[in-house]
């Protein structure tokens, strides 16, 4: 992953034998494993996708890396340090946009700066990020009035404005139409290339995973374990219709078929 950029603003992330279980909803005394023996290292500045069937624990894994939950077993390290809780250095875009409904679009985007007391200093960036997600015209609208895709773009901008060293994205582009989605993929890639953040991206879209990531982690059905990690060695910028791309795509789809009835999850 030689990225040829010496300003180190990314962090490495290591997961060692991470396991997580939750109490079963029907019998609260027994715990149901959701993730088991997850071991993987993300290098600083790497972009890794996480693919797997619904309910296999992808969101749970992101929450663990964000520091919102703690594993039952194993350990998570960021830059060799154990994760002790959430931090602005690890941004998370949730599967639901979860915008603060009492704040306007502008104030939602500013929230990260306001929370850290940096708003005065960095106000100019707010506009920049609003432009990035194409929502300047809605700066003073409340989330109530946004479409699902717009809300998700605001959530993306809200996480990006903190310039996190690790960015965790839980299907951030899921609600967008095909064209906006491709544009946003390029925007996210551009940001990633400019800022060298480490990214962990959950997606159901194989094309998106191949187009964007350095490696794809495929998880099994619940309890989620790592089925396979596929490196994507295509040159960037990638061409979605090149023969290498298509070849890789059919290989991965094949693999998912083998792994069970998951192909239905995949929007091909």
């Amino acid at each position, binding site marked *: 992953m030689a990225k040829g950029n010496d300003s180190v603003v990314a962090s490495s992330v290591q997961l060692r034998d991470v396991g997580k279980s939750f109490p079963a909803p029907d019998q609260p005394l027994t715990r149901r494993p959701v993730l088991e023996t997850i071991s993987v290292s993300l290098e600083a500045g790497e972009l890794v996708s996480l693919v797997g069937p619904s309910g296999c624990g992808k969101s749970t894994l992101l*929450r663990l890396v964000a520091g919102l939950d703690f594993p039952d077993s194993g350990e998570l390290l960021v830059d060799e340090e154990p994760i002790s809780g959430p931090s602005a250095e690890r941004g998370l875009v949730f599967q639901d946009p979860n915008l*603060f409904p*009492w704040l306007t679009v502008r104030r939602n985007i500013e929230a*990260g700066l*306001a*929370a850290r007391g940096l708003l005065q200093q960095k106000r100019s960036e707010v506009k920049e990020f609003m432009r990035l997600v194409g929502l300047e015209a809605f700066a003073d*609208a409340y989330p*109530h009035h946004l479409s699902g895709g717009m809300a998700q773009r605001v959530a993306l901008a809200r996480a990006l404005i903190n310039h996190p060293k690790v960015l965790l994205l839980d299907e951030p582009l899921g609600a967008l139409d095909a064209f906006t989605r491709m544009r946003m993929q390029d925007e996210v890639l551009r940001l990633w290339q400019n800022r060298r953040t480490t990214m962990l991206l959950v997606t159901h879209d194989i094309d998106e995973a191949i187009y964007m990531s350095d490696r794809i982690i495929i998880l099994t059905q619940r309890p989620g374990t790592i089925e396979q990690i596929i490196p994507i060695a295509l040159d960037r910028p990638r061409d979605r219709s090149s023969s290498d791309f298509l070849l890789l795509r059919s290989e991965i789809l094949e693999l998912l078929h083998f792994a069970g009835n998951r192909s239905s999850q995949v929007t091909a």
Partner: protein
Amino acid sequence: MLQGQKISRQSQVTVGSVPSDHVRADSAERYALSTPERKHPTAALLTVPVTAALALGIHFLVAKKEPPNESRTYTIVLGSFFAGAIVAAVMQRWWPALQTRMRRFRPLFTVGVLLLCVWEIITSGFRMLPLPYFPSPAGVVQSMINDRGLLFDSTWHSLVLLLSGYLLGVAAGLVTGVCIGWSAPARYWGMPLLKVVGPIPATAWIPLAMVVSPSALISAAALIALAVWFPVTMLTASGISNTRASYLDVARTLGANARYLVFRIAIPAALPSIFVGLFMGLGASFLTLVVAESVGVKSGLGWYVSWAQGWAEYGKVYAALVIMAVFFSTIMTLLFKLRDRVLVWQKGMIRW
């Protein structure tokens, strides 16, 4: 005329399809208002002036049974209302804001004036109700005018007492509510206290308050504060503890500290619930105010009512009740306005 109606009807339709100022996009009100407006013939505009004229007529018929000064005052009141209704009916053709208002309030005004007529008929007209307990509307109006100085003074005293007690109770309730809603130890110790002390009506403390406190006014303010404190605390606490966990999660990944989580996430998220508490507290404060004024405090509208009753001046009693109704509902309306302002984000009112 027809032309004019067509245009006004069309503009009504466009206003109706875009949520306008007072129509909330996602409330049942929208459905209530979206039923097509019926045609309003010119005659309908005259219902208020006509009923006012009817009231005047009835008044002239029964006037000789009333004291002349009462009768004259009431004539002036009804006459000015009649004149106002005529002016409004004419003006509204060129003043759209007035027109929508009149459309809304015309039935209410009409029925209100009719009720005044009925009241006058069964009191002055046929003497169906015993005096002095049931004076005629003319008598009440006359009492209101005669005693305006004292009534104004009483209203002012009530306002000061109400506001000091209410604001004190709200401040205390917000603080305890946020603590109980946010912190587990505060909830552990606070909830039992709240559950035991809270449901006691504040007025039940009156005997104790009279003994303990140096002045009736201070103890009344404290009782009002207590009455307000309970619902505000309850609903603030429940709003805070029901804050969606995902908002707090998002804020924590954005780098929020505990202060930010409480003041910028939990409290705004709890505001709808807090406002319910503020309304319940306001109702409780009216009740406590009036009771406290009629048993201990020597001023205010509650005191005025029991004082006037002591002298069997029932005209004054009703006059004070009318003023109380206007006074309390004005304060209630102000709180509604405040809520609509603070909770714009929730109402989905278009304001940009």
